[in-house]
């Protein structure tokens, strides 16, 4: 590593990076939890209540089929949310950290 390498620990402690990690991390944790819980519920219904899963609710579709379809819908929604927040908030924070790094990366440097 060369001597003019950025001070990674300082960048890591810097305000924009901490903000980025906190905001994006929160989204990732909640989204993963929602995704995996809904996945678990789908499997639990199949295992514990196959008769319920086989009940037709609307247009010939059973509860099980709709729960499966809702997995796809949830995946789309979470993807859309992540991309929207990335473009609106997180890429600006990323940019701030990159500017800090270019400026010499002291955490005290005013933004």
């Amino acid at each position, binding site marked *: 590593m060369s001597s003019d390498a950025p001070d990674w620990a300082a960048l890591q402690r810097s305000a924009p990076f901490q903000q980025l990690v906190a905001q994006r991390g929160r989204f990732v944790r909640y989204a993963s939890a929602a995704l995996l819980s809904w996945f678990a519920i789908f499997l639990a219904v199949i295992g514990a209540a196959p008769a319920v899963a086989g009940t037709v609710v609307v247009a*010939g579709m059973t509860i099980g089929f709709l729960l499966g379809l809702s997995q796809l819908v949830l995946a789309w929604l979470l*993807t859309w949310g992540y991309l929207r927040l990335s473009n609106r908030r997180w*890429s600006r924070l990323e940019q701030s950290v990159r500017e800090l790094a270019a400026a010499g990366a002291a955490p005290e440097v005013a933004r």
Partner: protein
Amino acid sequence: MNATRLIAFALIVGLTLVVTVWASRRTHSATDFFAAGRGISGPRNGLAIAGDLMSAATFLGFTGLMYLSGFDGWIMPAVTLVAFVLILLLFAERMRNAGRFTVADVLSFRLRERPVRAATAASTVLVAVIYLVAQLVGAGVLIRALTGLSFTPAVVLTGLAMLAYVVFGGMLATTWVQIIKAVLLLAAGAALTVGVLVQVGFDLATLFTTAAANSPAGDAYLAPGGSGRSFLDTVSVALAFAIGTAALPHILIRFFTVPDAKQARSSAGWATALIGAFFVMTAVIGFGARAVLPAEAADAVGTSGNLAAPLLAEHLGGGPGTVGGDLFVAFVSAVAFATILAVVAGLVLSASGAVAHDLWANVIHRGRTSTSETRVARIAAAGIGLVAIVITLGMGPEFNVAFLVGLALSVAAGANFPALLLALTWRRFTTTGAIAGIVAGLVTSVVCILLGPSVWPGGAESAPYPIEYPTLLAIPIGFLACWIGTVLSAERGAERSFDELQVRSQTGIGSEQTPVSH
């Protein structure tokens, strides 16, 4: 032999070889060969990622399983998109920011390079070769059923085309073959979907009610249980598709082909949108095949269900022996063939990267070698491809490939997924932890397959591990071994470089830029 279908197949091979020649003129550096010069845009890469997932197994296999077992066939497509959301949330941008060519780049960033690279490369090659053999056996059987060409020439021709794309055209050719195939497959899927919807008068209730009425199972066709799988089998299969898919090396390396992290997340977004749409179409096609095809078709579809979609195409085109039926089934068959070609090429490329970039350049030569990585990669690709072809021919068309897919997904889920996730997110994680996790996930997967119903003599009743897929054990054991290995080791250096990895992987500072020209 069926002339129309063979001509359609020849057109696919011709078109993809033209792409390969074009790509080979643009492939010089290692970045060109492994990462298509990092010049693929987000939407295009999204199509290619979707193409990697939409294999013949997902197109013909999933639709066939829905035709055969109704609701149970719908579970796999319904859960697979979980993997792509996990990829977007956890891996896509970080892979692009912190890696160059292989998954091992990201792992070895803060861990001791040589052991971690060797372990990751070994599991990458294992996953790729197992998956490759499964795809090639499937290809031979499918081409035989669709065209009348026998197993050996079908496998050899598929294998040679695959080697041509990778060896000469590298990632650029592989990506464009994948994009072309994805567009054709989405078009074929849409045509079949519209065809089915026209037949049922655009009424979903008619679609599902007729499908259930036509099925021997009756109303139970739309309820769980049609496949005869136990609940634990269902959970293992679901985990394999939802978690294992997220750590398949040939999918993860696609994120190295885009210019930056923004394009990486956009490609994951496109992939999720396209794959989800495709799965909705497979449901209409799978249940629709049951609703639309006459009862006699059940024998022709076969026990694997793989011919449900082609037979549906023939029926929708006007029936057997008609020009429309012949053309439509030739189109769908050629698309299935293109799918196989594109997917096997991606697999060979991921394995050749692991051999050339990880094992050869960085483990054996410690990053100091005068031989170009690209040359080694081309040789490795040819070698891996030939080995896979020989293994496939040795196993023959009767070989049960379902457990090979289970094994490949299980190694990805149990060995690759925990180590990659923890290397990116856990400050204390150590080299010992990573190696322990990779080895434990890999060994558990192999042992469970050997002790499982697919291999153990006597089947599910007498097998010590009575579940078909090892994921139920392999994933927890992989994570547990990562944790135990970390807690027991005294290593501390990895904590310091964690800051660097965090900053780099989350902001893109110091990431490999797109060359201005090449």
